[in-house]
């Protein structure tokens, strides 16, 4: 049902999947030096994979709860996790579509080379998992769709622009650098950028994403049980 409904948003998907990322890359590409252009790609992928997923899942779940359809499907035997995943995939189609497109734009515009595709796939899956779990947590933690909308936007944009997403983690001076380890998007962005340059430390950052994802899932499960 979620997939079937997703086709209604096709124009939004085209805009957010193609036009907006081209605009972002072209605009930011003019002010970023060549050596750091890889972070422009990894940052924008992180922005789409985590922020897009967090927002779409949190708000999608809140709307489904409000409309009673979450209850309808739970009563039909669908688990919350599976339903969240279907919302994630249907609402986050643009996020899924945009990753290969961003890589293609990176190759065409900035002559980017993907040094380690396997590490990149692991990094993207772990970032997606973390985004889904966090979206679920926000979607279940707040009572009304209005609360969920406000908090999911504040949280996701804070995690995009107050974390080392568009620049290397090492740019942050010590001891503040340690604070960025509390932000889950740091792990997503660093794992993707390290994978793009072929640095095996990408796998460690991906593990960080998985750990955060599991913590968020456990917190969601706790909130659901408390209700």
């Amino acid at each position, binding site marked *: *049902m979620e997939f*079937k*409904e997703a086709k*209604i948003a096709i124009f939004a998907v085209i805009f957010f999947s193609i036009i907006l990322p081209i605009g972002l890359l072209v605009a930011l590409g003019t002010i970023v030096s060549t050596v750091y252009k890889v972070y422009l790609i990894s940052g924008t992928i992180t922005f789409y994979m985590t922020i897009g997923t967090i927002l779409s899942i949190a708000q999608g779940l809140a709307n489904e709860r409000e*409309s*009673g*359809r979450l*209850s*309808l*499907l*739970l*009563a*039909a*035997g*669908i688990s919350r996790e599976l339903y969240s995943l279907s919302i994630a995939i249907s609402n986050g189609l643009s996020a899924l579509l945009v990753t290969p497109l961003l890589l293609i734009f990176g190759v065409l515009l900035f002559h980017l080379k993907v040094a380690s595709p396997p590490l990149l796939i692991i990094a993207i899956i772990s970032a997606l998992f973390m985004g889904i779990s966090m979206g679920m947590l926000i979607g279940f933690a707040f009572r009304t769709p209005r609360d969920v909308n406000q908090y999911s936007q504040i949280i996701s944009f804070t995690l995009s622009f107050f974390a080392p997403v568009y620049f290397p983690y090492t740019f942050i001076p010590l001891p503040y650098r340690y604070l960025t380890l509390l932000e889950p998007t740091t792990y997503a962005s660093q794992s993707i950028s390290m994978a793009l340059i072929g640095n095996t430390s990408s796998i460690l950052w991906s593990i960080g994403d998985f750990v955060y994802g599991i913590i968020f899932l456990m917190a969601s499960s706790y909130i659901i*049980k*408390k*209700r």
Partner: protein
Amino acid sequence: MDKILEVQHVWKYYGSLLANEDVSLYISQGEIVGLLGPNGAGKTTLVKQIYGELTPNRGKIVVLSKKPTDRKIKKLMGVIPQEVRPYLDLTVWDNVYYMGRIKGMDKRTIVEKGEELLRKLDLYDKRNTYAMDLSGGMRRKLLIAMALINDPKFVILDEPTTGLDPEARREVWDILLKFKKEQKSMLLTTHYLDEAERLSDRIYFINRKILMEGSPADIKKKFADWYEIIDYESGKIMKIRGEDELKKTIATLNGKFEVRLPSLEEVYLEVFKNAS
């Protein structure tokens, strides 16, 4: 008679707020049971525990001899949660079809059962209409079709007619009575007294805990220690206690008059007044 549902001493808290206090009830095969109570009485909380969305803090719920969280049981149930909307961007048929698929039905059975249901519910001509273009009554009928597509043994309807106009409410009642004839067991929550009286074989009055249980007639009888006499000649309305007093009063009347027992609504108000 086989028990379809057994709720045994269920307690449910939301933090420090007690929503259900030692609630016990049962539903037998083919029965429609009404759960009546004011807003905030814990009806929806109880219903959510029965279909497995929430779990009780204490007590036990058995649905069709299994736990409510058992996925197999959910395939034998049909549920219309409170204030639910169908998928508005899908057609009537898609809503019914995908609900059938979710409940594990094969395509051919869905087509057979779905078409039969849509015809019964007068929705067949609207099968290609988007749910967003349906009236409130039609949407409710669509939800009934979605709940019944798997030919459930047990149907839960949480305030199925709230917000409908009187005509649409009566249409929904007629549909439910039709399905009652097919021996479907139903749990119906409502705060409409006439609805409970018209549809239910038995009623539970609930306000956090069960206050009273019985058939509408039994409940009325239990509280029928007074009669209301309307004397059409004088226009007086009298409340009389006891049959002897009633007979004496009637003997003094000339012309047309009406004697009636308290309505379920009056009983309801008295029960809840005493409880509070």
